[in-house]
């Protein structure tokens, strides 16, 4: 399974590097624009945005991994090799998650560097990237979840499809509740990860029951 994850990360590493480059370029550009506006908060804003954009860029790459693997019919190749359905399902779930985790680490590191340089003032550099990862990661698996849900519906397993739909609505509602600015909840970033965990588990359960790899 780790061999499959490693394979995916190697295949998409250039895309990730490109996406991160874009994210950092945007952050720098924003800093330049805000500096022109003579805002004293510009450096702090740049580091903050860089941290956020790195997570967002990773999430986009996570979506692209699923979409590209699907369009290139990756499962078709891998399931003709000595690979089990369970290994494939785990790899398909963990690969985008690994990319998102790399984004959180990169985003947190950038914020940390800003703090160390004295231009940013985040006391804890990782909660914000984690919060963004939770918010966006929930949607990251939709390119896999939706077709699988459709397959359940079309094959007559409609109750299962409805249960999946209900769980997605539940996760979406919970995220929206947390997004509301007026809601102050202790441990909010960690709570934001709950719907992502739900989606990871759901996607894995669907993929490990998949009946077609053609």
């Amino acid at each position, binding site marked *: 399974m780790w*061999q499959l994850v490693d*394979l995916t990360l190697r*295949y998409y590493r250039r895309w990730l590097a490109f996406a991160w480059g874009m994210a950092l370029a945007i952050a720098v550009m924003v800093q330049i624009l805000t500096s022109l506006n003579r805002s004293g908060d510009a450096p702090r804003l740049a580091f903050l945005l860089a941290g956020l954009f790195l997570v967002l860029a990773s999430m986009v790459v996570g979506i692209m991994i699923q979409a590209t693997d699907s369009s*290139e*019919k*990756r*499962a*078709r*190749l*891998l*399931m*003709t*090799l*000595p*690979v*089990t*359905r*369970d*290994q494939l399902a785990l790899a398909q779930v963990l690969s985008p998650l690994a990319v998102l985790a790399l984004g959180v680490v990169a985003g947190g590191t950038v914020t940390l560097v800003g703090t160390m340089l004295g231009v940013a003032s985040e006391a804890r550099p990782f909660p914000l990237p984690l919060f963004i990862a939770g918010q966006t990661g929930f949607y990251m698996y939709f390119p896999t979840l939706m077709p699988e849900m459709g397959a359940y519906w*079309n094959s007559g397993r409609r109750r299962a499809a409805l249960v999946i739909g209900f769980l997605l609505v539940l996760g979406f509602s919970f995220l929206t509740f947390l997004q509301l600015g007026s809601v102050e909840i202790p441990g909010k970033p960690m709570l934001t990860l709950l719907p992502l965990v739900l989606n990871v588990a759901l996607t894995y359960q669907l993929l490990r029951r998949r*009946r*077609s*790899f*053609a």
Partner: protein
Amino acid sequence: MSANGGALAFSLRRLVKRFPGFTLGPIDLELQPGLVLGLVGPNGSGKTTMLHCLAGLLVPDEGGAEVFGAPNLVDDAAWRRNIGVVGEEHGFYMHWTAAENLQVVASFQPAFSHERARRMAERFALPLDRKVEELSHGNRAKLAIVAALAHAPRLLLLDEPTAGLDPVVRADVLDVLWELLEDGEHAIFYSTHVLSDIARLADELVFLSDGRVLQRSAKDDLVDAWRRISFRIETGGDMSLPAIVEHRQVRQEHQVTSRDHEATLAALRSLGAESIEVARLSIDEIAVEILRAKGVDRVAAR
């Protein structure tokens, strides 16, 4: 068990796969090691579905399959070391080179031989240093064949493997398959519309129509038995001939296609037919007649 006591190359037992508007099966089919079984049928007859079920790319709704004695379960990887699969879809990493894709296959198939892959690639004039997205349809098909054969699988499952290949490469591919069979331990299940490929390779043919096996026959038996027979006969009433799958008549001139020409000829002689001419049929013509007739074995000629 195979004839010599070893495991069968594959066996399908009451295999059923359902789709909206189409059902494959129930299918019972098996193949001995060392043989090539050609799968023949019109578009939509279920050939690809059957191969996908056998390759573990589709989970059947009922029944199952075994490959060299091991159930071909999607949750078991070991049996896949014995198979090579070539289909119309490949699943390659499009932004990687052909060589990098072969490296991926090699990392999962313990018996993968880089030397064998290199030799086949040279023989097929496959540019290994080119990205798959830059390869033509034909070159991608060649890559799929190299990837499927480089570990010398004991069972090769081929779905239109020579589609898009020029005649020279097609001949090379058939040569490579022929060489694979030399030791008598490998088996090939081969689906194609190019019946000349099957004519060269297959020992037996399975005819599939509407998701059901119409007939399974040894290729040589078909070629020996099937004939087109022309004759003249004067008959006032119905004429019933055995083993006839097609009949054409212009006045007293008749032309029939027989799946057992000896039985048909004996009947014709007893009826006093004249000017009898017998012509062999190609495997293509036989296949067309079998699929058209769908089991009809007698035609009342008027």
